[in-house]
């Protein structure tokens, strides 16, 4: 693999992992928010 190949793999891996983790966290937050009364989830 060329040096650009390693660079591409590194960049893609980082952004894919962060995107998956972010989406997972947001979905979990939505699911939990529906089960908790509004007064317990008043964010600033």
């Amino acid at each position, binding site marked *: 693999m060329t*040096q650009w190949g*390693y*660079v591409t*793999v*590194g960049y893609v891996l980082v952004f894919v992992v962060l995107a998956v983790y972010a989406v997972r966290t947001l979905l979990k*937050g939505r699911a*939990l928010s529906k089960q*908790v009364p*509004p007064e*317990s989830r008043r964010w600033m």
Partner: protein
Amino acid sequence: MTESEATVPAHTGSRTTRLLGLATLVGIAVVLVLGLVVTGPDAVQGDAARLIYLHVPVAVAMNVGFGLTTLGSVMWLWKKSRWWDTVAVSACEVGLVYTGLTLVTGMVWGRPTWGVYWTWDARLTTFSLLFLLYLGYLVVRHLPAETEVRNRRSAYVALLAFVDVPIVYLSVSWWRGLHQSATLSLSSTISGLMLFTLMTGMIVALMGFAWLLIHRFRVAWLEDELDSVGLELAISERRAEAGMTSVNVPATVEAVVR
């Protein structure tokens, strides 16, 4: 649906997170352009050195995460504050994601630079130990126990794990190995556009870290809310089974049951 339910959205977002998220996305685009197009290849390592604009920023964000985990743990031991305990566990999980990314980008960078993905170099060894220590923190966190016992156990594990953080940083000075010396130190030679791109990358990595941390904090807060509601509900049911005439069900439990 009550008026309160209609005005409080059922997610962990807020105006702050939306602005921060947008700024982070713009920042990522800027880093990509700077790191892959504007900044030239390194004189020694060539184009592979472009991985520095990811590897070092995610490592810095990881250190901030573990610093917050330690701070949150110390504050919990001192104040017994739920807020600080939630900071500790949220920062640890997000920090662990960044630790994994630091390991992976280091391995991908190591292959064209050293000829191998992995070697038992002092920095890599102490770093992988760090990953395992904080993974241990999350495992301890999930062991069945009363809330206070769980928080105390995990706080002590966090304090123990943090001992490895300065060892990781100093490992390249203490032991001779393949890993280059610290990129950010008084004796580092990085300068000009490379330094600017690296600094931009660090700011963006920290912004992304903050965005993830806020959302993860709110998720952890909601999990605790549900746990406490579940406990109150169980107590109420036991009281009802025991034939107690006056069953005092809290408003939060009623809301969840309803």
